[in-house]
C-alpha cells in the first residue's frame, strides 16, 4: 500500500515548539475520517519537539501575534498551533482504529 500523509495539529497558548499542547487534532489520511472519537485525556506528545523526535516533520509553526490596545485583551480561538506531518501506509478504512 502507498504511504500517505498524516497530520497532527498541536494547539498551544505560546508559539514555541516546546510549549505544551492544550488541544490537539489528528487528520490521518492513512486511516480515514474519525467517525467515533475516542476521548483522550493527555496529548500524544508533551510538545512538538517530542513529536519531531518521533519522526514527525513540522510543516507550520505560529508567528507571534501583534497586540493592539483595541484587541490586546480579546479572547477567541486558541492562539497558536503547530502542524506536523508524517507519511504512513494507507490502511483500509474498516481496519483503521
Amino acid at each position, binding site marked *: 500500500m502507498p504511504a500517505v500523509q498524516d497530520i497532527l*495539529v498541536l*494547539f*498551544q*497558548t*505560546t508559539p514555541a515548539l516546546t*510549549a*505544551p499542547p*492544550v*488541544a*490537539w*487534532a*489528528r487528520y490521518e489520511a492513512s486511516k480515514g*475520517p*474519525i*467517525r*467515533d*472519537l475516542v*476521548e*483522550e485525556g493527555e*496529548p500524544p506528545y508533551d510538545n512538538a519537539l517530542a513529536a519531531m523526535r518521533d519522526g514527525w516533520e513540522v510543516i507550520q509553526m505560529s508567528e507571534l501575534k501583534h497586540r493592539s490596545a483595541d484587541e490586546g*485583551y480579546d*479572547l*477567541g*480561538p*486558541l*492562539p497558536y498551533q503547530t502542524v506536523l506531518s508524517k507519511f504512513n501506509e494507507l490502511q483500509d478504512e474498516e481496519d483503521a482504529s
Partner: protein
Amino acid sequence: MSEYLISAKQMAQFVASGYLRIDDMVPKDLCEACLVEMRDHHFGYLAVGSSFEETWPKGTALGDAFRLPQVRGLIHSLVGPDPLYDHHAAHLVQAGNTRGPDMHQDSVIDFRENYFDIQLSFFPVDTPDEMGGTFLVPGTQFRSVRTGEIHIYQHMRGKIWATCPAGTMYVWNTGVWHGSRSNHTDQDRYMYKLRLNPTRPQVRNFDTADLDDPEIGKILNTNHGWEGNEHRYELMRRVQMWRFVSGQPDYDQGERFMRRIEYQPTEEVAG
C-alpha cells in the same frame, strides 16, 4: 423560591467555569413522563423572545419539570425574574450511533458584555459514560467563535462530559464550547435543552449570604487545564463578569490586573 437560589460560591463557579451540575432536580416519575413526551410528541418550536411563563406549555410533563420550584430557583438565580423563552431541543443520540469531532458553540457569535443566556440540559434517563453524555470544556464561555469552526479541537485539556443519574440538570452559559459523543450502548440517549434570556440586568439574583466568602477568589481563579499562558486574560474576563453579577464594580484580586486598563493618573501633582 428563595430556598432554591444558588449561593454566591455557586455563582462564582458559574462565572469561572460556565456551568453548574445539579443532581436530583427532577423526580424519577416525572423523568419517565418527560421521556414519553420527548419520544412521542415534541411540541415544536415556540415563539422566540416571548415570556417563558406564558409560552412554555402547561399540563405536560416537560412543562411541569421546568416549573419545579428548584428549577425556578436555579433559573431565577442566573437570569432573574420573567425570563424569555429562546430555544429548546430534544437531543437524541440513538443506540450504537457514533460521533466524530463535534466541538461547537451554540447559536451565533455573541459579544454582549454584562450579559449571558443560560441553557438547561436535562437528562431524563441514567446516562453512564458509555452512553455519551454531552461534553463541555469548562471556562470557554468568554471565547467567542463561529459555531462549528472549533470542530478542529478534537481533544482539549479540561474537557468533561455528563455522566449522571436520571433527573440531573446541567445549566450552562450559552457560550461554553461543547458537543455530543458516541453512544456505545443499546439504549437511546436523550437530553432536553432549553435556552432562556434575561429581561433585566443579571445583578444579585442569587443568594448573596456568602458574598464575602474568601473561597470566591479561589473559585474565580480556577485553572481548568487548557488556559496556559492565557489564564490571566481569562481571569480578567471572569473578574469583569463577577463585578457585574455581584454588584461590586471595584472587585479585583491578586495582582489586580484590571488596573492595567483602569488606572491612569489624571491630575498633576503640584511640585
